[in-house]
């Protein structure tokens, strides 16, 4: 089961800064959506609103899985954020413990999740013994172990080297294909958004509005070979040109309303 996400007339401000003024967004169950935008535009705040870690000042945030069930939401942070005093297995078991899952099942479920991310041999290791890529794998396993309806990822691969990042992107895509949970992936990278997601959303500067909302034309099953294919390069080119058009259109509208510069939007 996956979650339907709906934001209606959402406004959010922090002190004097307006993050969202009147944001509407709808995401179908089982979608893989990438959210891009300039630094500080509110991408992370959007994820926090969806996770219930922030409440909107105005408007409504709905994460609906139907049948009055409580949605299971998982969050992968920018850094792995593992608890250093817990072993790898214990870190992955944590969400299950907090959710009150039977203690006899916890260990088996956590072990399965770690095997899925290729860390079946590292169960008893501690976070300080792992590489950056392995830590992020544990973080992914911790997010997947509860079989979430909605998986939120906040630039999880930004600090990793290319080889590790490509491998983790493939793994994430494979997990999504297997589980078909709704995934919202925040990233700065246009190529990452193009490769991973089936829908790309670009936010403007604060107060954030949706500048571009497009559906990918890449095939559902994606492998490393796609990265060097003309289809993928053409997709990135199209994404860039659509973004450029959206920015110009926004600039024209804004100039008509009293001044706005393109280089202010994406310096």
């Amino acid at each position: 089961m996956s979650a339907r996400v709906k934001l209606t007339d959402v406004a959010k401000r922090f002190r004097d800064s307006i993050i969202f003024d009147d944001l509407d967004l709808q995401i179908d169950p089982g979608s893989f959506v990438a959210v891009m935008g300039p630094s500080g535009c509110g991408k992370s705040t959007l994820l926090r609103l969806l996770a219930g870690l922030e409440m909107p000042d105005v408007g409504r945030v709905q994460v609906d899985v139907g049948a009055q069930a409580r949605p299971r939401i998982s969050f992968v942070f920018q850094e792995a954020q593992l608890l250093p005093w817990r072993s790898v297995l214990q870190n992955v078991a944590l969400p299950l413990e907090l959710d009150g899952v039977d203690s006899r099942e916890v260990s088996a479920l956590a072990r399965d999740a770690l095997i899925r991310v290729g860390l079946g041999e590292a169960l008893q290791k501690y976070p300080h013994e792992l590489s950056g890529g392995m830590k992020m794998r544990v973080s992914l396993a911790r997010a997947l172990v509860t079989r979430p309806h909605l998986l939120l990822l906040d630039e999880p691969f930004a600090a990793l080297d290319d080889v590790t990042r490509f491998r983790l992107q493939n793994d994430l895509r494979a997990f999504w294909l297997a589980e078909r949970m709704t995934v919202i992936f925040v990233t700065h990278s246009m190529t990452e958004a193009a490769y991973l997601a089936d829908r790309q959303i670009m936010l403007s500067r604060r107060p954030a509005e949706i500048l571009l909302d497009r559906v990918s034309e890449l095939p559902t099953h994606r492998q490393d070979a796609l990265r060097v294919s003309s289809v993928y390069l053409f997709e990135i080119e199209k994404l860039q040109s659509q973004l450029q058009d959206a920015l110009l259109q926004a600039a024209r509208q804004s100039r008509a309303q009293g001044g706005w510069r393109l280089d202010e939007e994406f310096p």
Partner: protein
Amino acid sequence: MSDHVLNSSKLNSLKRLEGLGRVLVPFLILCGALELAVRMEWISPFVLPRPTAVLLSLVADRAELWTGLRETALASSLALVVSASVALMMALVMSQSRWARQALLPYAVFFQTVPIIALAPMLVIWFGFGFPTALASAVVASFFPVLASALAGLDSAESAWVDLFRLHRASSWQELVKLRLPASLPYIFAGLRVSAGLAVIGCIVGEFIGGGGLGSVIDAARTQQKLDKVFAAVFLSSALGFLLIGVVGQLAKWSLSPWHVSTRDQASRT
């Protein structure tokens, strides 16, 4: 493989010996210099005793010093346990209740600023002579570092960890037991190390005023101008402080191993 383990354990023993040597050599050089300076009458024996005289006093006055050491060790260890327990309980209450924190913290800080030497005569009036005053004085002296460090530790959990717990609707109890307490352990042990030394100092001050233990040995020897005995008692009280700090260090190692950086050896650090 076994050769490897053997070599590494030999290497560790050698490193430990080297560390001990680094501590002992400056001490022995200082003792030698002092011995020479006093024997050559560059320094009067009424200002500083000869190290060999202190050593002789440690042997000659061993019965009195041993009794004093036992009393001081008992009072300061017990005081450390009491102050650490009360401070931890208070920190837990204060971390859970904003009201309790606002109400209690200023008093704890104020209490810390009162000089223990000024408070000790009052402690004699309240608790009587001997052991109870030494104990109370040591508790007062060693209380605050544990409280302050435990409070800092309980607030030290990273915001992303707190978010993770909130995302899974963790109860306050789960957050305390599975997150805040483990995250605060390194801080608590750092505070305990400071408190261990302060417990001995507080105890000696209490004994100075209320009698008993090494404090009264020092006071009596000082009035009799037996400087060698004063230094013998001071040496023992310092050794007691070292021992208590060492015990806390071992407890920290046992509790924080293998995850905390302070318990890892250099080679395993990444």
